[in-house]
């Protein structure tokens, strides 16, 4: 799995609460059986003025000039600044795949939806939860300063602003470990193979009907 250690990058402010995964990647692009290539359709309905079709070339599509990501100053962004409950709705992992494919390595918001949070960790994307007030401040600093960058450092759990201010963030130890080392969590779980087998044997004795669903 992809590692996350640090990221020094341009910030995109997306000033919208409850951004859902349909908004991040609309359903027509979920027909792909691959994990890659979703970046050109990230935020498709907000980003383009026409209806996006799967497998279509996006280079000639009409761009929505009002959508923040289309402004020239935000070309090459890798850190997304967002509002509360980011990633709510569907469990589609195509949402983090699209963010990753576009080039986002980190999302900062006051809160995230649960399933989306897990899906990001599995794809080496760091999600940082900060207090409303700090997020608000970052939004105004980003708006006021073209070329606004943040330096995110996972080992020290800090974000450094262009003025040199340091903001600390919390992350669960388990998630930090997975991100820093890019661990394959299936291999990690399979290290507990004997425990799983032992549990399964006991559970089968206790609940045999769960192991004999044959159908009639």
């Amino acid at each position, binding site marked *: 799995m992809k590692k996350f250690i640090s990221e020094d990058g341009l910030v995109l402010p997306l000033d919208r609460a409850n951004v859902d995964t349909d908004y991040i990647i*609309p*359903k027509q692009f979920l*027909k792909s059986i691959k994990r890659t290539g979703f970046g050109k359709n990230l935020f498709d309905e907000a980003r383009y003025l026409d209806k996006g079709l799967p497998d279509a070339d996006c280079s000639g599509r009409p761009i929505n000039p009002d959508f923040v990501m289309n402004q020239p100053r935000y070309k090459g962004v890798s850190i997304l600044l967002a509002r509360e409950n980011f990633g709510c709705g*569907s469990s589609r992992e195509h949402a983090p795949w699209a963010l990753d494919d576009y080039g986002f390595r980190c999302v900062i918001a006051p809160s995230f*939806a649960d*399933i989306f949070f897990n*899906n990001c960790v599995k794809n080496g994307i760091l999600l940082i939860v900060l207090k409303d007030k700090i997020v608000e401040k970052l939004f105004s600093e980003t708006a006021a300063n073209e070329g606004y960058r943040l330096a995110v450092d996972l080992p020290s759990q800090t974000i450094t602003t262009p003025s040199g201010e340091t903001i600390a963030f919390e992350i669960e130890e388990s998630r930090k470990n997975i991100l820093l080392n890019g661990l394959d969590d299936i291999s990690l779980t399979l290290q507990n193979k004997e425990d799983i087998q032992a*549990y*399964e044997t006991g559970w089968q004795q206790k609940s045999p009907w769960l192991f004999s669903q044959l159908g009639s």
Partner: protein
Amino acid sequence: MAGLTLYDKLWESHLVKNLDDGTSLIYIDLHFLHEVTSPQAFEGLRLAGRKPWRAGANMATPDHNVPTTKDERSRGVEGILDPTSKIQVKSLDSNCLEFGISEFQIDDPRHGIVHVIGPEQGRTLPGMTIVCGDSHTSTHGALGALAHGIGTSEVEHVLATQCLVQKKAKNMLIKVNGRLNPGVTAKDVVLAIIGHIGTAGGTGYTIEFGGEAIQSLSVEGRMTVCNMAIEAGARAGIVAVDEKTIEYVKGRPFAPTGATWDMAEAAWRDLVSDADAVFDALVELEASDIVPQVSWGTSPEMVAPVTGNVPDPASMSNESKRNNYQQALKYMGLQAGIPIQSIQLDRVFIGSCTNSRIEDLRAAAAVVKGRKVAANIKEALVVPGSGLVKAQAELEGLDKIFTEAGLQWREPGCSMCLAMNADQLGEGEHCASTSNRNFEGRQGFGGRTHLVSPAMAAAAAVHGHFVDIREVELN
């Protein structure tokens, strides 16, 4: 020591071990798969040379992407006109064959929406842990199972290990006290709950739904409620096991029988929260306060009573919420303050894992019987949740009632709930929908969704706008 909640019991009975980093390894009894979120997981297994841990604990069906017209469906998988959809459905078939996973294929009479067929077949049983690469897996919690959605990486993880690495959620009890008024359904209850606690109100919690009003719902109604737990931010919603649960499960094709049934039933009867259990959060609603609900915005928390008006964002003190409401009104093309009943509709959708079971179809049919769809409604779809629901409805003559009224009677699938297939809204069109999400573009590019109960959707089809179902005479 305080007693245990139902969630505590389900968690503890599935705990393989607590890991050093504060997470836990939880055993998964049943894993549902569909065509959209599984191909990359199967590919992952192949690349790593892994096999399913226990193939029999998995069950698959294509639902998100399948067409619903008789013409396409009569030719099975080959009849799917959209070539990318066909590839995805075929991939599910070949992956299930390769990895030994049982599947109800598109032309199986038992095929349908995965969250409808699981309980219908008795695959979903009380006390299970159930996951699926779909956020509406919370539906199965209605039977006293711990069920929630996962992403594709976790689909692969469950296939390979039969476990998930999890952190225990907090416990929330939502009690709906007293009796529901006539015409008020499970859908109205859950929309009112989401309107009350907000779309992130349940984040980090497992919600147990309880109280007299929940107990009085049928098991199918409880599925509607648990289905939308995720729209309140909670991955899982559950309802305690009672007589209705046991009766619902008994005799279903995959349910235990004989002595095993007796053993199972005895175990299931303990699947209730202890009287002295402590919840981290308690929310109470009075059933008598709930009236039929209609969503007016682009988040399931943006609901109003059918007797009410579209709210005015200017009256909101919270700036973020005000912006949010303004964005929603702009997208929906609605003026603040107008009566909900004045919203003109273009389409109607009755279906989805929220409301496509036989009781839902009966409720809708009772409203449209002997009436006609209004002239301004371009299309009204009725999409049963499964082949068996469809067959039952036809046995009862519901299909005739719908088609005589001018609604279309379709083949089972997710259909216009997420509009991955051809069933979509046009740009700017308003739809009365029995589905679960009113997000921007959810039902089609530029489409405008209003979430309602099946009876409310049916009444809206007849009148061309929302009406209070309590004032509609049933035939």
